[in-house]
């Protein structure tokens, strides 16, 4: 969609941005509930079921609890960086969803309304750039806490991010080559015209998903906050809503990654019959379910296993995938 004249005034953009950020926040809040419910069921428990019918008010109760809690800081950590870090993490995580397309272009009352907040020609790179800035929230937060557990969590975050970011970026290269564009809208449209890239780019998809789970610090890659070794890693010295913002950032990253998976490999909002946003929501829910399922199933990796897997398995496979795709795209 490069500059094709869309009759979309600025106030529609503003309205859409407001709707998207609020829906996104709602999804993020309820992702925590769904995760706890599903984990409970998979472990033969009920999960939260006290606040409201089926525990549906649990995220709201959690929010009220976190806001009202005292946000105390260790004496060694009373520092601007300690306070800013959760904000950085939450801000970058929430911004990134503006780039994910969730619907086609509608024309309503003479105006064009696009199913995305922003379509930039380099959307994919911008998304990675935002993500790479977001991890500073975790790294600096852990360092500024002035606690050994937090510092160890920070070190692990650094090493893990650097190791898996490369594979993550390389794994989407195949998709970019096949779509011939870095714009997420173009990539989604291209799949709707041809085939979902999860098929021809199956290896790229696997690498992307594994590296993505590692990038979002989720089990079995949750070493930066391994509670049995590091208390809670970089989160150890945080409490109240500062802790809440870190959690928000983590779940926002998880939802964002699911959205990106849908956009890059499962045709975005495309699908028969139902409207685009509904299809997008269904696919998003499926990817989220798989991520929760993985958490409930797999035990945490040991640290050396994590590093070896990242550098000696994931990276070569991602490189080979990109190389083979490039040769095929040029040859065919």
């Amino acid at each position, binding site marked *: 969609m490069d500059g094709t004249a869309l009759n979309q005034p600025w106030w529609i953009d503003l309205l859409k941005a407001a709707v998207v950020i609020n829906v996104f926040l709602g999804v993020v809040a309820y992702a925590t509930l769904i995760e706890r419910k599903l984990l409970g069921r998979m472990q033969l428990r009920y999960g939260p079921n006290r606040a409201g019918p089926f525990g549906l008010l649990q995220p709201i109760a959690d929010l009220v609890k976190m806001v009202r809690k005292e946000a105390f800081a260790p004496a060694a950590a009373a520092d601007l960086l300690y306070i800013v870090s959760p904000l950085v993490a939450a801000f970058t995580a929430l911004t990134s969803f503006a780039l994910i397309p969730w619907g086609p272009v509608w024309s309503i009352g003479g105006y064009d309304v696009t199913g995305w907040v922003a379509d930039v020609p*380099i959307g994919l790179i911008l998304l990675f750039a935002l993500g790479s800035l977001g991890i500073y929230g975790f790294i600096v937060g852990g360092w500024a806490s002035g606690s050994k557990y937090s510092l160890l969590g920070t070190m692990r975050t*650094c090493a893990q991010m650097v190791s898996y970011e490369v594979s993550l970026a390389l794994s989407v290269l195949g998709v970019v080559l096949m779509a011939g564009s870095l714009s997420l809208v173009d990539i989604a449209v291209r799949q709707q015209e041809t085939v979902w890239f999860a098929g021809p780019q199956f290896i790229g998809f696997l690498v992307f998903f594994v590296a993505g789970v590692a990038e979002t610090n989720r089990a079995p890659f949750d070493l930066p906050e391994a509670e049995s070794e590091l208390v809670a890693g970089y989160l150890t010295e945080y409490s109240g809503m500062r802790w809440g913002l870190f959690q928000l950032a983590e779940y926002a990253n998880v939802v964002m990654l699911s959205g990106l998976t849908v956009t890059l490999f499962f045709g975005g909002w495309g699908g028969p019959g139902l409207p685009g946003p509904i299809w997008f929501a269904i696919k998003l829910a499926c990817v989220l379910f798989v991520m929760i399922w993985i958490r409930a199933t797999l035990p945490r990796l040991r640290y050396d296993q994590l590093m070896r897997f990242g550098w000696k398995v994931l990276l070569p496979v991602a490189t080979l995938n990109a190389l083979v795709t490039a040769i095929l795209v040029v040859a065919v």
Partner: protein
Amino acid sequence: MILASLAGDVLVWVVWVVAAIALLASGFAVVLFRNPFHSALALILNLGSLAVLYLLLSAEFVAAAQVLVYAGAVMVMFLFVIAYLGGRADAPWASSQAAVRVAAVVTCVVLLAEVVLVIALDARDGLSSAAEITEGFGSPRELGRLFLGDNLLAFEVSSLVLLIGAVGGVILGATVRRGEVEE
């Protein structure tokens, strides 16, 4: 329409001023902070402000790559090493030899002279080739064509330099480990 374009100009100007001030301030902060971790954070801010300036020059891809590679990946390694060394890491100026300091000052003076020269030339219309922003300027496609077409040799030479750096790092790391006593 005129009002809108005027507002756009003012906005560009405001962003430029803010980014330029942030760039200078964070640059000074990098060398003035006592704590190396704070210096590294200032360097991230510095690289970020530079990306904003690239953005104002319509080089979107370069700006995003700058943030992703330098402000993102490279600086994470800096922070990792500084956090790993803990209190043993020195402030940027602390351990440098006199020769390094002299070299740094000389380099800065040369760069400053260059900047002054360019501004002077520009003021007297001495710069012949005016900037021309075409349709695909700054796009990954155009950039790739420049790298792998017109400037292939320079591109490959720089990749060789990076490779030498990487191999050198591995060799240095390996020798240190061989010297260590097995625990």
